């Protein structure tokens, strides 16, 4: 197995969650989610030789994934025939509060999917725990601009959740 193959496998084992969460947030249904994940994996595979270790692998993966999600052609007229979240893999929860958590999770995902693509990307990065400066670096904007964008995106998400 080449270094390329080995690194790719290791990254996918260690950071597969990022791919899952991004493709889930940008897909319109389960089939689309699978397609998007496949596209991201291909892009990641192709981009790997240019990874020089300047960034954290998770940041690199996030950036590749967001790039694919934002750059792919979105089917404007295509909408899921039913609530595709029914088919979406959800957090496995046990015990009390599981149903509530499932409902909240669905509401968050539904609200995220209604956000504009760039807002969604900024929120996803924030939800993954990135700092304002990291967000600025990923998006190629100033730290203050990133702060403003993040603030607005959060407000819009909360409005969506209350709607």
């Amino acid at each position: 197995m080449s270094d390329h193959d080995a690194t790719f496998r290791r990254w996918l084992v260690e950071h597969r969650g990022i791919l899952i969460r991004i493709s889930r947030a940008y897909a319109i249904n389960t089939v689309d989610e699978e397609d998007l994940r496949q596209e991201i994996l291909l892009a990641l595979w192709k981009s790997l030789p240019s990874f020089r270790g300047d960034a954290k692998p998770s940041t690199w993966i996030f950036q590749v994934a967001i790039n694919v999600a934002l750059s792919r052609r979105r089917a404007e007229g295509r909408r899921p025939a039913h609530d595709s979240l029914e088919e979406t893999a959800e957090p496995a929860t046990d015990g009390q509060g599981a149903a509530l958590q499932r409902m909240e999770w669905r509401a968050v995902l539904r609200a995220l999917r209604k956000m504009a693509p760039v807002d969604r990307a900024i929120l996803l990065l924030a939800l993954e725990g990135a700092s304002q400066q990291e967000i600025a670096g990923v998006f190629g904007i100033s730290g203050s601009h990133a702060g403003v964008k993040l603030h607005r995106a959060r407000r819009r998400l909360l409005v969506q959740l209350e709607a």
Partner: protein
Amino acid sequence: MDFDQIQALWAAQPDPPEADQERLKKVMVHARRLNRRATVRDYVELITALGMAGLFAWVASVAPVVWPWVMAAVITMGVGMVFVRERLRGVPGVGPTDVRRDLERAIAQVDHQIRLLGSVVRWYLAPLGVVVALSLVGTLLGVRAEVGPEVWARGRGGFAGVFAAVVPLVGGVFAFVWWLNRRAVTDQLLPHREQLVQSLNQLTEAAGSGDEET
């Protein structure tokens, strides 16, 4: 629910199951196959152009009238080279820089494709049309030289008729190719470009132009 609660819910997602080794293998095989297919396609286009140019050059070496075939060979080579050069110019760079620049790069790539497909008549169909016309002229002139003036005078209407039938056929094929390219631009590339520009505008809009105070 506030943002901290949303973040906590997000973080509470369990790690997905271990990556499926079979799936990873499939992705890697698929990626390699795609790369190979793109390379093969470029070579096939170049080799086809070279082959056609070689064929015209060979016909030129045996035909009684040389010039149309030599011109057809040169134009075919030119079209092949333009095709490969444009394809290479459109190859996307690998590796992300930042989202803003990646979006700008994606828009530039779509613009390149729009220009390429939008000008297909100029760089592809028109030169190939000239090649077809030269082939017809070369053939007609060759037949005239072979059969002699008397037979040519008697039968030239028939010869010309046969070749005239080729014109609408080739014209139809060219029109279909033009329509396919046109449709790709209007139905796919322009809407895609619009989406990319919207995302870029959303990202770069002035900090003070939003709808809320910060």
